């Protein structure tokens, strides 16, 4: 789907009025296109305010107590700091990253879904789980049931439930993983990520793909993992890799209209705009292979 197609659909997308498959395509595109994402934000702002047109209903008084009690449960120890800089500053997301903001929760949700599957049997099993169902809506329901059946623990389920509203990004990732023409390339871990497993998945017809990683160590204090695409010997920034508490990570990576020759993830100090740090993951000379 190209920008013009997405922009024709962006208002219906914001209203939730697209069919699931179409919404997934739009979600995937805007995850990798700044201008369409900006238009999507504008449409969502209008859609969000529509709720104000209807009447207000007072919630039961007990709801507040329930919410506060739930927030203070031990699982709340997994709270994440404000914004991307981890320091509590308002709006300090560095470098216009796509993680965080409107889509941050979706990335995290997808990370949880994939992580839970990876946790019980590796990426192969996660793909098997993801590929077992037909319809995008059914996929989510099935994943929820499967996740439930493998007893991932209360905290995992709480995180899953807490983020379950942000399904679009998950659907976008699933759309890539389950596309019949999906390709993948392995990223080799350096000594800084010994034992990590990482693949970049994409389809020839899409300008965006999905980078999935497991067994990743968290970045050193004051550093981030940054994703770069390589083309004609040049590296271009393609996003930030946020490591989930269970050491998995997922990022939607836009590769633009032209083919890329490689992908690397480097360890960068906060605010770095160039790939100057140590390599964490690299496609090296690995060749792409079909997923299915």
């Amino acid at each position, binding site marked *: 789907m190209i920008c013009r197609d997405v922009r024709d659909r962006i208002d219906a997308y914001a209203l939730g009025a697209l069919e699931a498959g179409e919404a997934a395509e739009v979600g995937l595109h805007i995850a990798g296109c700044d201008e369409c994402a900006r238009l999507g934000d504008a449409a969502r702002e209008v859609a*969000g305010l*529509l709720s104000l047109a209807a009447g207000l209903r007072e919630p039961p008084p007990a709801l507040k107590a329930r919410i506060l009690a739930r927030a203070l449960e031990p699982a709340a120890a997994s709270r994440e700091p404000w914004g991307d800089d981890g320091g509590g500053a308002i709006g300090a997301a560095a470098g216009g990253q796509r993680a*965080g903001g409107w889509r941050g929760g979706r990335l995290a949700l997808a990370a949880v879904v994939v992580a839970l599957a990876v946790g019980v049997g590796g990426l192969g099993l996660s793909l098997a789980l993801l590929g077992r169902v037909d319809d995008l809506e059914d996929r989510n329901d099935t994943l929820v049931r499967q996740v439930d059946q493998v007893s991932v623990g209360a905290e995992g389920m709480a995180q899953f439930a807490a983020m379950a*509203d942000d399904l679009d990004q998950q659907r976008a990732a699933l759309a890539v993983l389950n596309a019949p023409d999906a390709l993948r390339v392995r990223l080799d871990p350096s000594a800084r990520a010994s034992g990590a497993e990482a693949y970049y998945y994409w389809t020839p017809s899409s300008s965006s793909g999905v980078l999935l990683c497991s067994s990743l160590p968290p970045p050193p204090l004051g550093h981030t993992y940054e994703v770069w695409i390589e083309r004609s010997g040049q590296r271009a920034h393609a996003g930030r890799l946020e490591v989930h508490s269970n050491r998995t990570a997922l990022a939607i990576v836009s590769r633009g209209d032209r083919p890329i020759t490689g992908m690397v993830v480097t360890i960068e100090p906060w605010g770095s705009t160039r790939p100057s740090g140590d390599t964490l993951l690299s496609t090296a000379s690995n060749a792409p292979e079909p997923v299915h």
Partner: protein
Amino acid sequence: MRPMQIRDEDRQRNVSEEHEAAGAAARAERDGEDIALMARIGAGDIAAFEALYERFGALVYSTALQALADTQAAEDVAQEIFVRLWRRPGNFDPKRGRFVSWLLSVTRNRSVDELRSRGRRRRLQTDPPEAAENSPDPSGRDDPALSALASDDRAAVREALAGLPQPQRQAIEMAYFGGMTQVEIAEALQQPLGTVKTRVRMGMRKMRASLLARGRVEP
């Protein structure tokens, strides 16, 4: 006589512009307070979280209830939204729009997902904006922030919606308040899908222009 009429019109226009400017300033102040509360929540301030609930609890609950037409399910969604907000405050990025619109968008999306996960056994119950407009605020609350929301943001949204051509307004209401896809709307109205798509697109863009003129969305 005529010059006097012109002066009256000018005066009315000036009063209207002053009113809009004052409303936009109040809105900006409230938005700043929302961001400050979120920053405190990011630092783990539970009192700020409680204050945010006081400010938006009724809105979130009402949005979920409007979609689900089930008080228990609406409570569950509201709980999920607020707990997630506490655990992942960084999901809101103030550079990408107003907090209130983000919060309500997230709430509504979660509610529709919940509805669809039930196999659409329940269709959303529309609370017609016209009826709500003429009814007293059922919250009956004295909270000044909520009153402010009710008196200007809510009025601006209702006016923007009311200003749309009826077919566009109908399509948006069926999508948003009825939780229907464009395909379902086209079937229900027995209209070509392309017509429905155009109505949704044009209607949403007019809504945005109207809300922008009233200072209710970011340029």
